[in-house]
């Protein structure tokens, strides 16, 4: 009974938080991305006089906003140790469905609904396979990548569907207002980034996602419905692919069998360059957003000075490898020094 007196209610002094050190902020991945972004802007501005032009920059966002929207949902998937490589194929399938509906005379709002719906259904199919049968998502979505794209190619043959109503095309091509010509797709991305950021970093759902990524077993034991959440993340990914399909189909005004080909790897590049751990459990929406700008502006700047696309692709590959190896290299460097 004497023990309760010795009960160490405040045996140790524990601070509320770790001491804040400048080096912690400077070593953050986001800080490095900001530096990288500034460097990209400066180099581009030096190379081309047309780079720092509001209208040019604004139009440049057309080229990456769809992928950026996909990257937001992909971030959540990768944080919980999953991945979806079928997103570009989902876009093809959703675009195909919208194309058939447009040929049948469906109005714009119905086309949007069909695009989003097909995307969500494809995502649900992925999610059901992954969580229902316990299959690895990378294998499942490599399979559905071929499946979805294959269906689209068989149904479409080598033709293209181009009969889209003007109001539908305006979503992908249009600006918010005429006075400030900012693309709708870019504004959508910024809005979604804010929502995703708040949900991931401020809410219960976000905490659960990080816990699932850091230790799925402990998350399950703590009462988190791990598989249900994973399923809905695949649905969300599909829904975002549907949205990207709406924007992309409207922007190019047509559905072709090879629409969005290779998007999945560019999206994964954005996410990984954004500092999201491919092993799960770590990453920020801010980082991914910065990575979107780094990659988007690099591509835009290089295309301004007529660097061929294949060279830009090489550069993106180098950026990706550099970004995933940077932490390991830095660690080795720091260890060597101490």
């Amino acid at each position, binding site marked *: 009974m004497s*023990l309760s007196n010795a009960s*160490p209610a405040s045996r140790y002094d524990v601070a509320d938080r770790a001491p804040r050190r400048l080096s912690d902020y400077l070593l953050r991945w986001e800080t490095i991305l900001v530096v990288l972004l500034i460097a990209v802007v400066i180099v581009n501005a030096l190379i081309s006089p047309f780079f720092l032009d509001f209208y040019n920059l604004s139009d440049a966002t057309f080229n990456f906003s769809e992928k950026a929207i996909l990257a937001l949902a992909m971030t959540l998937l990768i944080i919980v140790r999953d991945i979806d490589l079928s997103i570009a194929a989902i876009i093809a399938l959703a675009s195909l469905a919208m194309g058939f509906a447009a040929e049948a005379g469906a109005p714009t709002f119905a086309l949007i609904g069909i695009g989003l719906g097909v995307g969500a259904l494809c995502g649900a199919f992925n999610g059901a396979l992954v969580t229902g049968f316990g299959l690895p998502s990378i294998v499942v979505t490599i399979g559905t990548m071929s499946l979805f794209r294959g269906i689209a190619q068989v149904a479409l043959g080598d033709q293209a569907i181009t009969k889209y109503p003007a109001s539908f095309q305006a979503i992908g091509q249009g600006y918010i207002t005429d006075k400030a010509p900012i693309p709708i797709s870019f504004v959508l991305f910024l809005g979604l980034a804010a929502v995703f950021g708040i949900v991931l970093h401020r*809410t219960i759902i976000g905490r659960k996602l*990080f816990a699932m990524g850091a*230790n799925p077993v402990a998350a*399950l034991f703590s*009462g*988190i*419905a791990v598989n249900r959440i994973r399923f809905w993340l695949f649905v969300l990914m599909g829904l975002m692919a549907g949205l990207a399909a709406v924007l992309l189909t409207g922007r190019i005004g047509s559905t072709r069998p090879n629409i969005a080909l290779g998007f999945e790897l560019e999206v994964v590049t954005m996410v990984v360059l954004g500092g999201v751990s491919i092993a799960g459990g770590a990453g920020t929406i801010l980082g991914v957003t910065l990575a979107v700008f780094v990659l988007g502006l690099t591509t835009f700047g290089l295309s301004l000075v007529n660097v061929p696309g294949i060279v830009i692709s090489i550069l993106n590959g180098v950026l990706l490898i550099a970004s995933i190896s940077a932490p390991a290299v830095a660690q080795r460097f720091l260890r060597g020094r101490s």
Partner: protein
Amino acid sequence: MTSETCGACALPLHSGPPPSSDPTSSGHLLPPSAGEGALAASLFFEISIDMAVDASTQVTETSGLSAPILTLTGVSKRFPGVRALHNVNLNLRAGEVTALIGENGAGKSTLVKILTGIYQPDEGEIVVSGAPFICTGPRDAWAAGIAAIHQETVMFDELSVAENIFMGHMPLGAGGRIDWAAMRSRTAELLKRLEADFDANTLLKRLSVAQKHLVEIARALSHDARIIIMDEPTSALSAREIGDLFAIIAQLKRRNCAILFISHKFDEIFHVADRWTCLRDGEEVGHGAIADVAQADLVRLMVGRSIEQVYPKRDVKPGPVVLEAEDLANASEFDGVSFQLRAGQIIGLYGLVGAGRSEAMQGLFGLSPLTRGRVKIDGREAHIRSPADAIRAGLAYVPEDRQIQGVVLPFGIRANMTLASLKAHARDGFLSLAKELQTTKKFGGRLAVKAANWEQKLGELSGGNQQKVVIGKWLASGPRILILDEPTKGIDIGSKAAVHEFMGELASEGIAIILVSSELPEIMGLADEIMVMHEGRVVQRFARGQASAEMIVSAAIANEDAEAPCAGESGEALP
């Protein structure tokens, strides 16, 4: 059983190759006893010559003891915000077992990691066999003859015993090809020396945990290791396997190995060790011969508290029945498990590994589907199909495997503490840092979690403190029924006492507790009722004080095993 005297142990009794060089192995000059024969006599002769070379230092210094073959002097190691080791001295002598004792977080693991080259000390000197030891990686440790046998064996399940033993230093033949014949014959020789009952080609996954330990020891011997570190080697072993391990330790002593034995179990320490060194908060607080010390003294040294207080008994009047389990069963692991649990009551669930205790509790908690049975809470049937259902019904489950099932290592203390009760720490789905911190301080303080700050990552805490955080997480969920599955497994005595005391406190607050434990003193000291499981079924129930350790153990092994008294002994050896 008393520890063996040094007299007999300096002379190897086996005919295997003698240790490569051991000028410092023995300090005593007694002639060999009759019957040990010519081999022993010739060895004695060699040793005598060695002694003569540096007798001036040894004889005066050691007075009957062998000189240390490993010496740590003033070793310190700092991590950001933590002083892991401070000015630690340690001597290991050939043919002796030195027990390293201390609470979790006292610095034992850091010390082991320094000796095996994973960490480098910030200050201090390490001397192995007379030469300064500078260790930058596991290979240096091997080269210096240091081998560690870990709590959880890290080996290759899909490879053979021989491949495991020689991994990294396989004998090579012409053209750099592996010389399988040599590897097998050397393995066979090592296994014979250790009296192993399996052969070199057996796949590792076919072996028991105890046999895997044997493989690790064989691996150490294959490197001619002279210093063997055993870090909690018995935590996964049955009483009988522990006996086998002790026989091997005795053999290693006879082979002149120095052994550093780390354990939380005092009966084992007193059984097997010759000397002891105690760490507390990274400092060495004492050392000496086991023969000269009492268990109570060691406990006091470790925690500054005496052992009578380890099992605080609280008399709590049990309240109404809160949980009724009727005939629970799942597909294969348990069947017909029924019990009633009252508010303020502690039920102890005892059984051997594989008896189905954890599985039954996980079924109750909604982690695995039940194929039969009903669960009533407060008399009303509860349908628990997921842990979330269980939490809503007022259950909490502190799992057995802390690292995998309990903590999220990359998360800080705060995020771990609130993980099972996020809703209570949020408004409209948005988490409130202030509420989280309040809960963390409340339970972190009550459980005396030792940390630099509440954001410290769980991976940086000791096992005992991690366990406190897991318990805190479940208390934060406001449970009425708390299931603790091996809550003190592998944690130090101070944390253990804190957990035990806390259980008593919770019971007196009316929380109903199920304590799954393999430690008899814990079960007998704390439980109001003891249920014993065997092969998935509840085979015996005892009220508090009704059963002796032997009765409980023989129920757990269902009287089939002739080794019953042996198993009982390990439980009884504790007060």
